[in-house]
């Protein structure tokens, strides 16, 4: 049977598509260490010039929010419509604002 402690750890892969863009999650690879993770990420996710830079980080290091908390975390923004420019009525004829 498989022994999880013997499996190479999992790394998440992020790719910068081109200069000026931020890195974006692409998928994951298994690798024994960081250097191998970069090599595997390159072979697996950038065979067609998909990027100019790669990030890899151990999957176990990612801390994420719980989907169950989504309402508590994100809904309060819904009643703060005054954060959006369209909330404010500016008379016709006023320009550059």
């Amino acid at each position, binding site marked *: 049977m498989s022994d999880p402690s013997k499996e190479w750890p999992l790394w998440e892969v992020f790719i910068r598509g081109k200069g000026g863009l931020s890195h974006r999650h692409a998928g994951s690879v298994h690798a024994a260490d960081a250097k*191998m993770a970069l090599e595997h990420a390159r072979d697996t996710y950038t065979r067609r010039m998909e990027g100019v830079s790669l990030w890899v980080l151990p999957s176990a290091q*990612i*801390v994420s929010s719980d989907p*169950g908390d989504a309402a508590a975390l994100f809904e309060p923004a819904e009643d703060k419509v005054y954060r959006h420019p369209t909330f404010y009525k500016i008379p016709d004829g006023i320009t550059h604002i």
Partner: protein
Amino acid sequence: MYTTDLSGKDKNAAVAGVAEDPALIAAFEARVAADEFIEPKDWMPEAYRKTLVRQMSQHAHSEIVGMLPEGNWITRAPNLRRKAILLAKVQDEAGHGLYLYSAAETLGTSRDEMTEALLSGKAKYSTIFNYPTLTWADIGAIGWLVDGAAIMNQVPLQRTSYGPYARAMVRICKEESFHQRQGYEIMMHLAAGTDAQKRMAQDALNRWWWPSLMMFGPPDDKSPNTEQSMRWRIKRDTNDELRQKFVDITVPQAEAIGLTVPDAALKWNEERGAYDFGEVDWEEFYAVVKGEGPVAKERMQARQKAWDEGAWVREAARVHAEKRAAAKLAAE
């Protein structure tokens, strides 16, 4: 974390067969019905998770086993151009397998567990790869027909309800089109070549046509999982719908290069605006599913050999990394 923690406890809790909360199920069904995407950490019914692991790992295994029939011709490609193309295609198939394994792992099944399921025969892969590649024209037929059928299956899966699966499919579909076109190009050149080359192309079409139609799976009335999978948006079209679409698109492509689809019953149906075609030999299909394909044993032997012979590499790299990490820690 993004990827499900395999050593975590939720996995075992979920398998324990605890009755699922009807309110959670209803909320889940409503989200799926509204075409929302389900993500790894979202609650999902255990049956949905299991169906996905089965479908995605089967899909990944097919990509990996699919490298074998084509790999068979890399050293014998007729020229350097064809060889470079075939190498790139086979490498893509490895990549596709890896995208899918990585997406399936987010459901809490480890890569090694999936590999073991394949090697033990517990997990299936596409029946098409249990047919041999006898001539160079088979490489053309595989790209054109097998990848063509795969595209037909995969395009709707870009909108499948499980987010990581859908995203993997988007990536895969972008790359498949090259596979199909290079295959058709091979067939086109052979069909325009000498009589012997033309015969070779026709022979490959004769042998790969029916197995390609089988790739869409059993007929709708004998496909027990279809209804549930359609409701869960894991599947977006039925097997027969996709098969019909494939026939309608592919027949004119064969005619355009002077090849004949090996089906005496094939006939354009003006009323339906589609081709009528003959019955697939389902006996053969079920036999191949059960592992009785012409080269099924060789395929699994090749995978087992690769796994066994790679064991020392996996072990050495792991131990080396652990040693270096320990040394680094000691130096701090």
